[in-house]
């Protein structure tokens, strides 16, 4: 056996990106390369839908800023001023779901979108002013809904938009945010925030804390994706984990310890899910922000908020790793409705103008 063969081992064939010194220590934080490479070759005009915890909205914004094909299946009504759209949570995610923090909530949305569950399965709460709030999106309307009927109609409208995201997107980007959540022990309803924290009334007899475990999250995510793939077998799912720490924990642990547990479990679920499904990939936004080489440089002084520079770096790696070399789908149809309506309004204007001028001339 030659010396060369004797000294051979798998690490001799690993590229530079596989070694800490050449991939991290030497290039430094802003020199990382090949951090992520998309598992798929996507169409040039690939359609992205984005959902999940609050960090997911950065992905929505970055896709919009780059004028990429971000699917906004539930936009605000036409000509809604940006401030009003923001106040009513339009344009944050691809449908008006609000934050989807847990896999359990993603499963609820998948069931609503597929029709497996109806709007009546979602708990509603009426505040002291008689305004109605749905407990899946408790802050979606700044002042709640006028009635139970309106709340349910709005919820189903969002479920239809969520269904469009499943059936029309090429890539469904989902950011896992939390392991901790609250459930109704009688109905099994999963809340997006603890009842009593702004919306709802806390009842210790009914409301129970859950720190979802790896197997539970894996099961819920599996069930949700199963439904989504039944609706669109070609859907690709890109998982990310939010680097934003917990604002508080009800686990009894120190919030730092609880955060690390939560993120570790979510990271493990996302990684294993990506390894076991060709249609699932993992994008390392969590690592870019929270791994030791950043020295927490991208956290705001409260060590929780993420600075825009960090978001920008995450998105640079995201876009650098995308492969958009497949043929495009073709032109978008949505703008046609607007231009047809504009033309119709212009025709009506002309009629009105002519009527007025004729009247004025007569006078």
């Amino acid at each position, binding site marked *: 056996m030659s010396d060369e063969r004797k000294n051979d081992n798998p690490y001799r064939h690993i590229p530079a990106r596989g070694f800490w010194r050449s991939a991290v220590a030497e290039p430094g934080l802003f020199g990382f390369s090949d951090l992520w490479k998309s598992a798929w070759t996507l169409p040039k005009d690939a359609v992205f839908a984005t959902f999940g915890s609050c960090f997911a909205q950065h992905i929505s914004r970055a896709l919009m800023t780059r004028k990429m094909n971000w699917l906004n299946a*539930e*936009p*605000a*009504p*036409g*000509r*809604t*001023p940006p401030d*009003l759209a923001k*106040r*009513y949570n339009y344009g944050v995610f691809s449908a008006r779901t609000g934050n989807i923090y847990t896999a359990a909530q993603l499963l609820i949305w998948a069931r609503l979108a597929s029709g497996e569950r109806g709007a009546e399965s979602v708990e509603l709460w009426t505040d002291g002013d008689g305004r109605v709030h749905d407990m899946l999106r408790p802050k979606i*309307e700044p*002042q709640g*809904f*006028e*009635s139970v*009927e*309106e709340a349910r*109609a*709005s919820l*189903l*409208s969002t479920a*239809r*938009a969520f269904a469009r995201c499943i059936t029309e997107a090429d890539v469904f980007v989902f950011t896992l945010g939390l392991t901790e959540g609250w459930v109704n022990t009688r109905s099994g309803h999963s809340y997006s925030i603890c009842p009593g924290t702004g919306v709802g009334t806390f009842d210790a007899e009914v409301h129970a804390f859950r720190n979802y475990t790896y197997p539970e999250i894996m099961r819920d995510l599996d069930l949700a994706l199963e439904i989504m793939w039944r609706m669109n077998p070609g859907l690709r799912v890109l998982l990310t984990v939010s680097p934003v720490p917990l604002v508080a924990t009800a686990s009894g642990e120190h919030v730092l310890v609880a955060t690390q547990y939560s993120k570790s479990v979510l990271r493990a679920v996302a990684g294993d899910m990506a390894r076991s499904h060709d249609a699932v990939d993992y994008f390392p936004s969590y690592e870019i922000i929270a791994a030791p080489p950043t020295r927490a440089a991208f956290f705001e002084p409260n060590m929780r908020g993420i600075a825009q520079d960090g978001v920008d770096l995450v998105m640079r790696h995201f876009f650098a790793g995308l492969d958009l070399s497949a043929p495009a789908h073709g032109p978008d149809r*949505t703008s046609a*409705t*607007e231009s047809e*309506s504009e033309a*119709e*309004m212009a025709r*009506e*204007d002309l*009629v*009105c*103008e002519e*009527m*007025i*001028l004729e*009247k*004025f001339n007569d*006078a």
Partner: protein
Amino acid sequence: MTPELLILGDSHSIALKEGADLLGIRAEALHFSGSQWHDLKFSYGTHGFEPRGVRAGVQQMRALREKLGVTDVFGMGIPVISTLGFHLGRLVPPFGWNDHRVFEPGKPTDSGLIASTRFAEDYVALYRARHIRTARRLARNAKLVIVAPPPAFDRPNYDAIRGIVTRQLQAAGVTVYDPKDDLLPKGGTLPAELLMPDGVHATAECGAMILQAMAERGLLAA
């Protein structure tokens, strides 16, 4: 001769003026298009109400001032009827560009996107704030009645947004007359014989019917 009635508004107010002519009511009018009303081409200043940057409107205003010998035409104390604030042809279609429907109890909600009533109210309030302020100021100096456009067709969101504009004007203390109450007590839309060939605007006869109904309710008296 001093007019008995002043009419101010968009193309829908033409039927009111023609109706007044049919009824022999001495009326003077100032009309400019709904899109110019929507685009805020008017103001209310020291000389009262004024069209701004609307050639036909400015000319009509000048002619009215000369004829009546006053600057603040709409502040003379003569009753004013107006379509100010609606201009639905500019407000409603964009609302539906993305397939939105304002939630309305009892109406189907199983397709398209549903916008809450509160959202629609905020949307309307943003686009109609100056109109409502102007109506309130006009109402201080004359008996003002805003006449809602009679429903000419059944298209999404028209009825809901028409109702929201009405409620916001009323909440500001402005009197609103809805011709539906007298002309269409069982609901529906105007019959073809009361509509112009464009299918949108009411005829002079319809305008006369509206004025008669308003007179019976005491809405035209000074």
